[in-house]
């Protein structure tokens, strides 16, 4: 076309620029992937005797003899080399062609493959119970997922929430206290949810009504929750353990039939109520946010509150509701630390899981299932970290524990992958 008008030329130029930026991104992306592949080969395959085999146990828990699955035995060298080659090929393809969609799923997958290669290398000439490892990863991922879901509910409505840690800590304590005093775990769970909701409501009042900066408000909740729980714990709960700090735990519920599926049956279908609640909430929140009028309103308020207000949506009400619902979800997550696991409250027992939840929310791009996937990967890194010592791997477990945080920094900076927060996230709304 010879007679293009000026605006079109401009448009084409900007399109070219965008395409160029995209290509650069894809190249960076592919380069990093290639680097990971090389690192995988050098660290986990190079110099490994090809005759060695890694064996993975696939039976979790007390599986009846007739249902037991034989161990999964794979050649260590060939597997890692194969994974490295596949990853390398993906990287090369990325550099040459530059696929259109570059998602965090890809980064998560690369991370997972890397960790798996590490695992194969670590178990060369040894064995590890893979099903048990995945089970632990799921268990560790449950509170993280609750935290992430709480964050999604708040932030989709435009209220940034760094107080998830505090909400979960408060809920963990109250669920234990009330659960012990009432002698009923369900009452304890409800108390945990209520605590999460009350603390979230404080966050909501401070940040929505008083328009306090949402980070400061979140910090207030975190410090307040840490202080209060430690105060009550050391003054009462540690002294009167039997009367105040001994609620017991929810039993595992075995889902008949499904639990007998080989390998995954015991992993997925023999869990406490918390895991099932988490799966249910994942589906409910996903459908709620993306397929209902309610969800459309919440997201509208989080993206463009002014427009939403103009269309007659009550911005303040929607935000209060979303934050308090998030508090309820975080409350369940908090209770899962105590009633779902150890049956006891200890000071500071959430140990940063709320912040990992925040990380999972970002990594999962503010979507429930994305956050769940990220939580699983983070949980897997966590569960592997505790076993590195057993496998005599000369990598300090601390570095594996850093992985979730570093991965989050990488995606938030858009170095690899990309996250897009709700547009009005964190901004107080004024009529």
């Amino acid at each position, binding site marked *: 076309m010879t007679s293009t008008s000026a605006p079109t030329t401009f448009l084409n130029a900007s399109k070219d620029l965008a395409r160029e930026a995209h290509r650069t991104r894809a190249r960076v992306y592919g380069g990093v992937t290639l680097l990971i592949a090389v690192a995988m080969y050098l660290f986990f395959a190079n110099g490994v005797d090809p005759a060695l085999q890694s064996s993975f146990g696939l039976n979790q828990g007390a599986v009846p003899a007739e249902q037991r699955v034989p161990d999964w035995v794979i050649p260590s060298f060939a597997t890692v080399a194969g994974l490295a080659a596949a990853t390398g090929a993906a990287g090369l393809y990325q550099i040459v062609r530059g696929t259109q969609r570059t998602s965090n799923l890809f980064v998560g997958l690369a991370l997972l493959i890397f960790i798996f290669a590490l695992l194969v290398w670590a178990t060369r000439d040894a064995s590890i119970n893979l099903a048990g490892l995945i089970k632990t990863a799921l268990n560790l991922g449950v509170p993280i997922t609750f935290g992430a879901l709480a964050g999604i509910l708040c932030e989709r409505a435009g209220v*940034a929430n*760094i107080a998830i840690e505090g909400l979960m800590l408060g809920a963990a304590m109250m669920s234990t206290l009330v659960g012990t005093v009432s002698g009923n775990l369900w009452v304890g769970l409800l108390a945990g949810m209520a605590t999460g909701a009350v603390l979230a409501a404080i966050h909501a009042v*401070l940040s929505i009504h*008083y*328009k*306090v*900066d*949402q*980070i*400061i*408000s979140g*910090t*207030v*909740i*975190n*410090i*307040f929750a*840490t*202080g*209060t729980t*430690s*105060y*009550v714990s*050391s*003054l*009462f709960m540690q002294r009167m353990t039997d009367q105040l700090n001994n609620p017991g735990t929810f039993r595992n519920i075995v889902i008949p039939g499904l639990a007998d599926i080989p390998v995954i049956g015991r992993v997925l279908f023999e869990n406490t109520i918390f895991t099932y609640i988490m799966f249910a909430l994942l589906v409910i929140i996903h459908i709620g946010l993306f397929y209902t009028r309610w969800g459309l309103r919440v997201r509208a308020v989080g993206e463009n509150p002014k427009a939403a207000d103009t269309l007659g949506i009550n911005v303040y009400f929607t935000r209060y509701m979303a934050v308090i619902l998030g508090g309820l979800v975080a409350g369940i997550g908090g209770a899962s630390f105590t009633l779902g696991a150890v049956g006891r409250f200890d000071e500071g027992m959430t140990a*940063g899981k709320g*912040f990992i939840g*925040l*990380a999972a929310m*970002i990594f999962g791009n503010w979507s429930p299932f994305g956050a769940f996937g990220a939580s699983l990967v983070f949980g897997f890194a966590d569960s592997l970290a505790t076993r590195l010592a057993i496998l005599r791997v000369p990598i*300090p477990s*601390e*570095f594996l*524990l*850093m992985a979730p*945080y*570093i991965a*989050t*920094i990488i995606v*938030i*900076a*858009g*170095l690899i992958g990309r*996250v*897009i*927060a709700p*547009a*009005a*996230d*964190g*901004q*107080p709304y004024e009529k």
Partner: protein
Amino acid sequence: MTAQSTPAKAPRPWLALRDDLLIPLLAIVMALIVGSFVIVFTNFGVLDILSGASSANLAGAMWSAIATAYGSMFEGAIGNFGAIATAFASGDSAAIGQALYPISESLATTAPYVLAGLAVAVSFRCGMFNIGVEGQIFLGAIFATYVGYAFTGLPAIVHIPLAVLAGALGGALWAAIPALLKARAGAHEVITTIMLNYVAYRLTDWLLSGPMQRPGSTNPISPLIAQTAELPRLLPEPARFHIGFFIALAVAFGVWWLLFRTTIGFEIRTVGANPDAAQYSGMNVTRNLVLAMCLSGALAGLAGANQVLGMNRTMTGGISGGLGFDAIALALLGKSHPAGVVAASFLFGVLRSGATKMQSVAEIPTDLISIIQALVIAFIAAPAIVRGVFRIKRGGDDARTVFMRGWGR
């Protein structure tokens, strides 16, 4: 008084100034009042009366609970005036040292607060929220510890400044990561610094149980620093009051001078107040953001170095004890002004150091201080609450700090 809180067209500037002083003061009073409710309703004596197990006077029990708590806190933090007078009258230096022990300990606790509070204040001034002061304190402490024990044979006059500067460098480097990520990739510093805090914790865990572990120890603790790296203590044992307090005051003065008397400070504050205007007037916004963040990290690193070189003389996982989060309260309380931060730090130093005595005498966990601090931040960040309770009219516009402009880009 401060650039942020004095709007250009404030009708009555003295009212704004009054707010700057009155609101923090009333916020503290309100927090202490709420704190006394907490004390009363967790007091075993009061609870016994309320549940009918004891028939003592309720009001008396409540009053004695509060009086014992805050009384012992005051005595633990400032000291007993009678004892101080007697000690000075006797002229015995050991007795004087003992009588002054509480206040000297409070001042020693104040020093890291000043430095950490300044760290947050500087980031606030540039429109950023450095929530990673805690991690930067750890990195500063690690660097200072390493220089402190690994370099031997240096004279103190070289070794001390070297270790102190190493601390500042450690903090600045750690803060440079979020600064560069923000400048280059637009990553929100709140998220990156939160994540970096946890990376710093794990790094510390690893160093203290690996490369930096004290030889022969199974605990996560570093070797003792060389004596030549110790910040000199100024009072006889067991008082830990050391020269770090004066260093902190000097640094506070230096930060004030930098922020309010130099072009660099003017640029930093302008970028903080309105980045677009700063850009339009030809300032390099990116460079100022990175500079302010590194300065903030260096101050945090100094706080870490102070803890190692002056107080503990070794590095443990508990080196900071939440200092980096208390610092947020300090910067808010001090309205991000160095003088305000020093005053707020003294208050927090007194509270923290008095809390130890309160715990031993009144059996109230020191965590009460965290609760009071959280309330102080809430009341200061939401001055409308304080105004409502005390029925104060609005002075100038409320200085509103907004850091959230969306995560990432």
